[in-house]
């Protein structure tokens, strides 16, 4: 008798834990409207293509620019034959300006972490955060 109740309680707790993400977020207001991103002019590829494959494109750009040595490797020719420089900082952010107002908008909502900005177009590189120069590290902590 006790075992049945204990078992049922156990199952209930497990079910609650497993479905936590589903019912917890219902307590938070959801974004009601879809995200509208700042655009100026035309993107290098159509929006639907970019939405689906921008990461794949960035990886291809990265590997061809860093790892190959052809003279023209830094040039991307889009589906309409227009040439662009393969650069996150200069081409993508040249139009979309800042990761905070562009990239992060979707990434934060769908909980995607990208590591690009650890090195590229970081806040300081964009002049956004002066920061104090820290002390030299001690020998041990």
């Amino acid at each position, binding site marked *: 008798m006790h075992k049945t109740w204990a078992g049922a309680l156990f199952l209930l707790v497990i079910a609650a834990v497993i479905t936590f993400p589903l019912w917890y977020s219902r307590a938070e207001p959801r974004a009601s409207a879809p995200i509208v991103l700042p655009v100026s002019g035309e993107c290098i590829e159509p929006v639907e293509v970019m939405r689906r494959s921008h990461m794949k494109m960035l990886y291809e750009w990265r590997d061809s620019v860093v790892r190959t040595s052809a003279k023209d490797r830094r040039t991307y020719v889009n589906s309409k034959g227009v040439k662009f420089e393969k650069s996150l900082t200069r081409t993508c952010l040249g139009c979309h300006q800042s990761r905070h107002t562009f990239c992060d908008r979707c990434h934060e909502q769908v909980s995607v972490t990208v590591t690009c900005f650890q090195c590229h177009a970081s806040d300081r590189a964009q002049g956004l955060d002066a920061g104090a120069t820290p002390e030299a*590290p001690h*020998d*041990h*902590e």
Partner: protein
Amino acid sequence: MIDKALRGPLAYWLWLGALGVVIALGVVSYLHQLETGLTVTGMSRDVSWGLYISQFTFFVGVAASAVMLVLPYYLHNYSTFGKIVVLGESVAVAAVTMCLLFVLADIGQVGRAMNLILHPTPSSMLFWDASVLNGYLVLNVVIGWSTQVAERHHIPPAKWVKVLIYLSVPWAFSIHTVTAFLYAGLPGRHLWLTAVLAPRFLASAFASGPALLILLVFLHRRLTKFDPGKKPINLLASIVTYGMLANLFFLGLEFFTAFYSNIPSHKHTLEYLYIGLDGHTQLVPFMWTSLALGVAGVVVLLVPSWRRNEGLLIAACGSIFISAFIDKGVGLVLGGFVPSPLNHITEYHPGLTEIGVSAGIWAVGAFVLTVLFKIASGVREEAGECCVAGEAAEH
């Protein structure tokens, strides 16, 4: 069979609990390291590998030493080791687990560790080392498990297990040889650039691994009623003796080549380790302690009446284990970075976080070892071979 590890006396659970606390400490330390970076260790631009890699190097040897039991028992049907082969394999599994954890702890961008698999690089010894270590782990787990299941049911192991066992013999030699190859092919590091490095690694492994096993068997005997008898212990002690003698011999060979040839780059590191270089003497006491412990241990083992005295045997095994740990871990790995390629001397001492992570990994090894020994002990009891060798108990 895991059920054998889920039942035990209070002392067993308290011990696992204590290990759990140390593991938690290791995890917290590691999180700190993840957050801040490897600056929390004592490593530097000149000494780019430290406690993590040195312990990894040492424990690969301990893992490989299981072959010293497997080879005579399975390959040559030398039945003396029958009762303790599974214990040797358990030590191997625990040691390899520690090795893999030490490597992970040392990686700067651990989130990218999959790159080792996504971009395999046959020219890199680190790629091969990672591969053969994982293979050795799987091999020993499968072999240990199958032989235990067979023992439990009083049947010989399945035929395919024999194939894996035969495979594990050259594989054990290979894991430590490949680890030696990490060091022995680097053109700028003259302490390591020697053909005798792999044999030295193996000799030191075959001294320290069985020494540890002897200590563990005695401990096991005290905690359970399992006594394999004097023969396997004596044989293990002989292996430790020969291994340590070979290790000391190889060390002597290094000294000869360095000082007879008089080539500065060959001499410098040995001078740094044993006499001090340019006033830097931090490691000198460690190296002489290691030498003294190693020699003392081997002397005790060479005198038959001393070797047969259990107290002295335990002391000798302990001192040989510590000697090999210092020699390989501290002397070899740290010494190889001194002097630096630009003739500078940067010394190293571990940071608190580094020690915390290492302690956590040692605790994981002890945890795995405890569980595996408990399972082996449980299987032995169930199979009716619990106590003194040759006597079956009534259950």
